[in-house]
């Protein structure tokens, strides 16, 4: 049973889908809730580990439909709708992602046994992730979802950049670069100190800032049409 309502909002937080008030409340909550901080750390570790994995073609019989949808180029309408796009994870999905990455990393058998017998604290015992979890979320998708959200927003911005003043485009690109460097710093730090809750929440916060800025820029560009 999930007793902490914030645990289900962590992926929304990373998506930048929370309202300002909700985001502030969650960030305050993270400062006082080791369980949610640990869950967020787990999510980020999944993302970071998935990011580091080589892309592998999925088993065709399991993944053909999913892979096709992932590879499918979005329509212009879908690209326009990207501002509303989410890369949300439910906690079962997070657990599944953790399993998927663990399997892909070679630790699957150990983790499978561990999750089957004693779920780790950050992952609530709410509907148990299907043990066919690797079939739910392919290795690498966790990181890819964030990257895809960023890429989609960047694509929208690139398509609409002609509507923006060249100075504004340059300023936005410079500020995205500032955020990217901060993200890179935080990733390197988290790799060196993976259990550091400050770095986890800070990385999440900074990734969200990038999504927010991209959305802001895309909205400005769209409003100039």
């Amino acid at each position, binding site marked *: 049973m999930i007793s902490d309502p914030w645990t289900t909002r962590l992926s929304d937080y990373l998506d930048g889908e929370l309202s*300002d008030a909700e985001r*502030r409340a969650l*960030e*305050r909550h993270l*400062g*006082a809730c080791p369980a949610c901080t640990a869950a967020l750390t787990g999510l980020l570790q999944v993302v970071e580990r998935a990011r580091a994995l080589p892309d592998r073609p999925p088993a065709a019989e399991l993944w053909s439909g999913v892979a096709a949808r992932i590879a499918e180029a979005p329509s212009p309408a879908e690209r326009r709708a990207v501002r509303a796009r989410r890369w949300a994870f439910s906690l079962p999905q997070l657990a599944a992602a953790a399993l998927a990455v663990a399997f892909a990393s070679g630790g699957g058998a150990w983790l499978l046994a561990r999750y089957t017998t004693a779920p780790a604290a950050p992952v609530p015992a709410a509907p148990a992730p299907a043990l066919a979890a690797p079939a739910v979320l392919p290795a690498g998708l966790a990181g890819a979802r964030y990257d895809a959200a960023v890429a989609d927003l960047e694509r929208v911005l690139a398509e609409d950049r002609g509507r923006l*003043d060249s*100075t*504004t485009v340059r*300023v*936005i690109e*410079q*500020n995205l670069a*500032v*955020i990217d*460097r*901060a993200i890179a*710093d*935080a990733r390197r*730090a988290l790799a060196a*100190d993976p259990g*550091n*809750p*400050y*770095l986890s929440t*800070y990385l999440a*916060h*900074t990734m969200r*800032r990038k999504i927010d*800025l991209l959305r*802001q*820029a895309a909205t*400005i560009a769209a409003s*100039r049409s």
Partner: protein
Amino acid sequence: MLALALVLLAAPTQDTTVAVQRGQRLEISAQTGEIVVHTWGRSAVRVQATGGNLGRLSIDQSAAAVSIRGFSARGGPARVHFDLTVPAWMSLRLSGVNTTMRVTGAEAAVTVETVSGDVEVTGGNELVSLRSVEGAVTLAGAKGKLDVGSVNSDVTVHDVSGDLQAETVNGAVFLEKVQSDNVEANTVNGDVVYEGTIRPNGRYRFVTHNGDVTVAVPEATSALVSVSTFQGDFESAFPVTLTERHGKRFDFTLGSGSARVDLESFGGTIRLVRPGALPARAPGSSGEHKDMDDQE
């Protein structure tokens, strides 16, 4: 109430006054130029518009709003300097692109959005939201729920009260004479400076990546202070006793610890000073933030 529209044609300088009713808000959009808003005690809006290519000034009224726009002689957006005088009770919604915005004396909600201009607002109540992408944003004398942000410039807030959220990416955040029990300020490449109340049960969070966080802590403050950095340092003008420490993350308690203060700088110095001991800053100065390129 019937919608009314007043259209003034073909004059580079126009000056007109329309009566308004309490409850109406002012909406004005100018793609390029400047919008300056003053207040007075009359229930009327005076619009003075000047622009070399100003061809048509449109003033639409509905029960909810007075909407003002300027158009060029060819029908497109004009470069206009608007000088408006409005009732102090009137809420304001200003938008623009290459537009500088200045508001003084507002006593109601104020929303300002621009892309490349500076924003400077004195006054405002209930909900004050100020945004610029490229320009500096300054707010003073406001109270209520305050949300101010830039992307590529500094954010300065002083002499305000209420919930305060301030953020930028490449600039500093200066918060001075703030009376609030809920403040959050963050930037990526710049300093964060706070001088204001730290109230019992209040929440305060100041975050930067590549800059310093300086907080003036009043005597007799009661707060649990959490300091987090990765490569930075911590300095305090007064002794503190750490209650929990994990590397460069640590907590300490002042008084009974009822407020919560979170201070984070990935690479800069987190500094506690006493009120009045903040580093001097020239008005309008951009922060001391470092060029991140120089750090690599």
